[in-house]
């Protein structure tokens, strides 16, 4: 597995003296979908901006496809497509010419057929002659994606691409990302919708206060931190957990209408059958049970809180 993006010892101190990145090291593999998670102000956009040449790094080096982003910026940037977090578009240009403009900027000869393909895949073809200012917010978001794809990049940065986007467009977008991965494009995204990282990413990095505190294969992460909970909904609310059930470390929830049992799903004998039998034996009647797996969100929140 080769490295597509290599960040080493990258720091950023903004003019006012604020340290937005602290000696970040990160390697992204060719062709993977990498999700960068972090709370507001963690430094996600700063990291992406440095890689794309929008912000000067204070220390450290970044290589894209083996090319240094400072000394060999032409080769490095030609590989990159960027969809920024903010909806920044021209107003009076037409959709088609705006996308063609970006392709030209990146040093590619005009290719109307390719632009048509990109616009169609983003359901923008019908709007190709419309002025950008007549588009809705979601369409502008698509336009930014079309611009980023216009020069056939090998690395795509999506900075919170689904902010303010409806469910349907979000689904379209993820289909598009999957298609890109099939073509071997490396995708790096930041998102606040953690389910998406969970659903889409191959690997996940968590960044907070300018430090990457964790990088892990998604499956390993889920596995490592994954706990399951069994909730038993009772007929009658109870005030205390019966002594006989102490070994299960049950928690009273829902004002005593339910009992929650937390267990490790990977264990061979999680003890569910025993628990249910012991509940019966203790005379606690229940009407329903359900299990939930701790989501990436729970993991994320517990990590960032530390």
């Amino acid at each position, binding site marked *: 597995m080769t490295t597509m993006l290599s960040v080493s010892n990258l720091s950023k101190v903004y003019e006012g003296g604020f340290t937005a990145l602290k000696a970040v090291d990160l390697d992204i593999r060719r062709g993977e979908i990498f999700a960068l998670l972090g709370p507001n102000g963690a430094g996600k956009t700063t990291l992406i901006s440095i890689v794309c040449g*929008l*912000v000067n790094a204070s220390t450290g080096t970044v290589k894209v496809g083996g090319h240094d982003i400072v000394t060999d910026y032409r080769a490095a*940037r030609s590989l990159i497509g960027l969809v*920024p977090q903010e909806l920044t*578009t*021209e107003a009076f240009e037409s959709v088609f010419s705006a996308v*063609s403009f970006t*392709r030209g*900027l990146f*040093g590619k000869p005009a290719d109307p057929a390719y632009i048509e393909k990109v616009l169609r895949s983003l359901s923008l073809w019908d709007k190709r002659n419309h002025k950008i200012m007549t588009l809705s917010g979601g369409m502008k978001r698509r336009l930014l994606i079309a611009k980023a794809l216009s020069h056939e990049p090998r690395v795509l940065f999506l900075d919170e691409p689904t902010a303010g986007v409806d469910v349907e467009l979000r689904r379209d977008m993820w289909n598009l990302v999957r298609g890109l991965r099939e073509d071997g494009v490396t995708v790096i995204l930041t998102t606040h919708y953690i389910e998406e990282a969970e659903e889409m990413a191959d690997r996940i990095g968590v960044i907070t206060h300018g430090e990457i505190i964790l990088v892990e294969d998604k499956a390993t992460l889920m596995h490592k931190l994954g706990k399951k909970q069994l909730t038993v909904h009772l007929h009658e609310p109870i005030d205390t957990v019966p002594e006989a059930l102490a070994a299960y470390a049950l928690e009273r929830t829902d004002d005593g209408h339910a009992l929650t049992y937390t267990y490790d799903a990977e264990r061979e004998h999680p003890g569910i059958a025993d628990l249910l039998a012991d509940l019966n034996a203790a005379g606690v009647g229940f009407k329903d049970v359900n299990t939930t797996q701790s989501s990436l969100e729970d993991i994320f929140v517990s990590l960032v809180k530390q």
Partner: protein
Amino acid sequence: MNLYAIKAIYRFEMARAWRTLTQSIISPVISTSLYFVVFGAAIGSRIPEVDGVSYGSFIVPGLIMLALLTQSVSNASFGIYFPRFTGTIYEVLSAPVSYLEIVIAYVGAAATKSLILGSIILATAGLFVDIRIEHPLWMLLFFVLTAFTFSLLGFIIGIWADGFEKLQLVPMLIVTPLTFLGGSFYSIHMLPPFWQTVTLFNPVVYLVSGFRWSFYGLADVSPALSLGMTLLFLVVCIGVVAWIFRTGYRLKP
């Protein structure tokens, strides 16, 4: 050289001028025509000839310079300020383009626009007064050099400005007064000696003088000095632009 990028930016900028045709071409032509009517016909008929040239004809080179300077500055400053203001500059900064290419494209487009405009004004002037051009090649040289130099100045202003007020401040408070006081409407020899000396610190004097010399062979200062000063100003602007890009001033945090 990323020629596709230069072409893309250049065409984008020219399309913008085309969209705002009234603002970018028609209004300067109208205001210049008004100068001809007021200074050339109404007042000019009462002013004696200046060194054998009728006053109406005398002011043509100065008026073209006035339009060239103000339009170059405003075209170029707006062209780079606006994408900074809206944020769309991110695309240019993240593209595989060198600073030189960015400058060539933006400044080239701004200079093209003001050259087109200057030509239109020259043609318009021809409708009002007699014009002769004694040194056409010199005239072209001054014409093109001035357009590029002041487009560079505009580019610098567009990067320095952090609000629309500042964008208009420099043209209004510096460029226009310097042009008016730069001998567009008079020969500096008409001034008292003290003011003649003061005037020599005004760079526009050299532009107007050189340009007028290429028309009528009349000059306040020698044409070689005019050319030298124009080139000096060009070099200073290039130096400032190079510094801006080397430091990322106002472009990259």
